[in-house]
């Protein structure tokens, strides 16, 4: 240990680490604190109250926006996980020409600026609608479906990155044994591969779900007249009197998402450890 840093340097880094943790968590903690404050979100605090939390359910627009986000996030992450499984199997288990190109295409949504991706889909959907209207008089318009389409694209690289490492560790012995014992390809996947992959699938779903539920930039271009939760939140930020209630909802989501992410991480680590012991 003394090779990596002198005593003084060690202390300096320790202090820097603690400062960084404080800096990272204080702003979030303040928001949570203000959600219990009866007055405006500023110091000195007035009396503590649960009122903002109680009023959430009686705000239909807010509840609808939350429900929309839950629906969009569920559908888009299920699709992203399904497509992610296919890509992962192809990249890990298959040999084919053009593999680098395929993985470049799959991972490139990681670096595309969301504003560019959002307007690109907006242009595509508008053009498609113009075409529909001129040929058949039909019109689809923007809405939750367009948000789902966009979120699947940006979630896909994350689900692939979660599924691929586990698939790489998974030896093909189990599947081969199942096939030798007479199971069909479908049975083998359902009874052997899928259960072994389950931890990665769950954690991929959770990552995609959190990403979609919180995504503002793409949704702001594509949600049309049906704002998802982040789009609603953003619009309401202009109304100062709404702020404490928004903080209350956000605090609930915050606690839930931290719980989910930490839980998913431990589940993944645990299952990996178990699997490593097995082999």
């Amino acid at each position, binding site marked *: 240990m003394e090779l990596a840093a002198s005593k003084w340097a060690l202390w300096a880094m320790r202090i820097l680490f603690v400062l960084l943790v404080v800096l990272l968590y204080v702003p979030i903690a303040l928001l949570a604190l203000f959600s219990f404050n009866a007055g405006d979100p500023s110091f000195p605090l007035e009396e503590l109250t649960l009122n903002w939390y109680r009023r959430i359910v009686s705000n239909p627009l807010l509840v609808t926006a939350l429900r929309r986000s839950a629906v969009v996030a569920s559908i888009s992450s299920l699709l992203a996980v399904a*497509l992610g499984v296919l890509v992962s199997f192809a990249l890990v288990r298959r040999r084919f020409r053009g593999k680098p190109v395929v993985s470049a295409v799959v991972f490139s949504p990681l*670096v595309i600026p969301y504003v560019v991706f959002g307007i690109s889909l907006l242009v595509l959907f508008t053009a498609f609608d113009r075409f529909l209207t001129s040929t058949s008089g039909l019109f689809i318009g923007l809405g939750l479906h367009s948000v789902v389409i966009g979120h699947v694209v940006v979630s896909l690289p994350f689900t692939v990155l979660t599924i691929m490492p586990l698939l790489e560790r998974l030896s093909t012995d189990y599947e081969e044994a199942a096939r030798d014992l007479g199971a069909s390809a479908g049975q083998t996947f359902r009874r052997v591969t899928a259960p072994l992959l389950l931890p990665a699938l769950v954690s991929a779903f959770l990552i995609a779900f959190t990403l979609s539920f919180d995504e503002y930039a793409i949704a702001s271009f594509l949600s049309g007249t049906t704002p998802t939760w982040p789009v609603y939140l953003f619009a309401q930020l202009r109304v100062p009197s709404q702020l404490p209630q928004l903080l209350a909802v956000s605090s609930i989501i915050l606690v839930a998402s931290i719980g989910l992410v930490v839980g998913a991480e431990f589940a993944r680590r645990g299952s990996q450890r178990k699997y490593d012991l097995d082999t």
Partner: protein
Amino acid sequence: MSSEAGETAGRREGLVTTGLLAPPLLWLALFFLVPVVFVAAYSVGGVHLFPTDGGLSTGDWQRFLTGGSTYMTLFWKSIRISLTVSIAVVFLAYPVAYFLALCVRRRKYVLLLVIIVPFLTSYLLRVLAWKVILGDAGVINSFLSWSGLRDPNDPIGWLLYSQFAVMLVLAYVWIPFVALPIFVSLESLDPRLLEAAGDLGASRWRSFLRVTLPLSTPGIMAAFVFVFIPTIGEFVTPLLVGGPDGYLFGNAINDLFTRGLDWQSGSVLALFLLLVVAVLMAIFGRFIQVRSVAA
């Protein structure tokens, strides 16, 4: 196995691969590549969506590239801010990642998770937190006036709605993410190299400069690129805490599509940004192990 049977099996293998790749690639082609092609076509007037859209012309491109519009200035301002933020964030995150990777023995992954967790919470919320902290009636100013350190009628105005606010918030948002690739590159460092350097008489500082730092360069590069690229197109943070002074290139694209309804100019800016990102990825891409993000 006869050669004929081998051929059939080979063809079936090929079919399976096609079957696996077809749905995801079709999705990406339809909803990722085609839209970009549409934007490219739109930027030169190749797509006609509104009555006001002109015909084929490279006029918008020429005006933009030759500096006939203010957008080029805005682009360089965005680059400058992103560059400042990414460099600052890498400098801050490096010692923390170093500490976790090389100095902490027990529970280093738990401590790493402590740093990363804020990145996984709502982005809007973290930006909003700073709006609440930095505002005229915000946490800092209300604390200053409450404690008597500053006249209540004279709050510090430059805290919010400024370039400073944009840079501070972007740094705050991205730091957890940056620590990760640096941590990964430092952790894979063979400690025997440091022992060898020490045995050969190098001081700690010298072996850091000659061994550790060069070997962690890929991590530093990856960290830098992963902040620099997404922040160039950033428009949400400037919208919330930037004010007129913190208005960036991404805001211009957003406004052209949502307010000004000049989609053609907007497409020019968007495609230009995409090309810049593509060039940056071509330059820096080889430093990036995409895997390091998922570690």
